[in-house]
């Protein structure tokens, strides 16, 4: 498989270079989208299917759409001012890259986490170790990560970025939307449910759900009224609220922040994940569609 890895690595680097050097905006964005595809393959090769799922859900759905939106709104690339720095910067950067490759390749981490995770997994309430880390051992990280999403939503709301006005794409999109939207809902439910025992989980499920919703929005089949946006905003905020209440509630019960009661861990984790899935889907959709920009005059 070394040939596979080498070809994949070459493709990844090629995509990165194209994404960062093409003057045509669409070329740059398309190369970045393909980079996401190839990177997901490399996560599979690195035995990280959970990460590959997240990359697939985010890279195929939201990121590409977000960058295309920006490419459309930003207009063509302006000519660069000066190129004098380019060569020294390239030398410094390649030196840095070579050094980092050497340092990372020569370091091999002592096995500290693996035995700890293996020993604690039976008490975590779930059997997928990644979910156990994300929602039990290091649930505080995940709570703060959801807080980052919420703050991004607040910033987007503050900026009032131009609301997306989908154009009618005609009746050809109807069969597509009618099949893809329900399947993405089912898929999200499947990923959420199996997250406790196999690769999957709240973020992957939420991102898939958001992708399905985006397809509906783009096909002009989803309502985008002010009330809907307001509801989606509340849904986006609710995930962090549920997580925080669960954190404080678990402390009231067990005396430790995010320490779930014994033998009820799975119920807590699945409940939190279900709330997070909906909230993540709403947040990601809102980050793409944007909020109404109020006119000055």
């Amino acid at each position, binding site marked *: 498989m070394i040939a*596979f890895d080498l070809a994949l690595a070459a493709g990844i680097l090629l995509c990165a270079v194209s994404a960062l050097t093409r003057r045509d905006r*669409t070329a740059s964005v398309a190369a970045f989208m393909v980079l996401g*595809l190839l990177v997901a393959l490399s996560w599979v090769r690195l035995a990280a299917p959970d990460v590959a*799922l997240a990359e697939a859900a985010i890279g*195929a759905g939201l990121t*590409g759409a977000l960058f295309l939106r920006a490419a459309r709104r930003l207009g063509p690339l302006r000519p660069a001012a000066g190129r004098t720095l380019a060569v020294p910067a390239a030398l410094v950067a390649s030196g840095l890259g070579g050094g980092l490759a050497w340092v990372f390749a020569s370091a091999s981490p002592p096995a500290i986490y693996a035995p700890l995770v293996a020993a604690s997994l039976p008490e975590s309430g779930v059997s997928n170790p990644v979910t156990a880390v994300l929602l039990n051992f290091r649930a505080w990280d995940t709570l703060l990560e959801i807080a980052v999403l919420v703050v991004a939503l607040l910033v987007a709301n503050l900026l009032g970025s131009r609301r997306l006005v989908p154009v009618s794409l005609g009746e050809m999109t109807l069969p597509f939307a009618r099949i893809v939207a329900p399947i*993405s809902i089912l898929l999200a439910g499947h990923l959420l449910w199996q997250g406790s025992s196999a690769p999957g989980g709240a973020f992957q499920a939420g991102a*898939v759900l958001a*992708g399905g919703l*985006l397809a509906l929005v783009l096909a002009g089949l989803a309502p985008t009224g002010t009330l809907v946006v307001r509801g989606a905003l509340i849904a986006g905020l609710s995930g962090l609220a549920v997580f925080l209440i669960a954190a404080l509630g678990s402390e009231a019960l067990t005396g430790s922040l995010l320490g779930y009661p014994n033998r009820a861990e799975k119920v807590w984790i699945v409940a939190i994940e279900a709330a997070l899935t909906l909230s993540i889907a709403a947040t990601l959709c809102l980050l793409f569609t944007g909020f109404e920009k109020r006119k000055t005059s």
Partner: protein
Amino acid sequence: MLDFLAFVALLATLAALPRLVVGPSAADRIIAAQLAGTGTVATLILLGAATGTSALHDVALVFAALAAVSGLAFVALRSPRR
């Protein structure tokens, strides 16, 4: 054997890159990305079959389900702003 076929599928995926870079039209580039998406799904299925990991089917499924989102975004956002 499956390893080799996965490798060929990866090469077929990467073969979309030249068209993506050269274009000439924006539509060409987006269609190239779309083709790379299909190639990735095939590669994932083959990797899953080669290693017997069923989780990869989910990854492939997610890619397949969301493959059209960026294409749709491209067409939907293409029309004039106002």
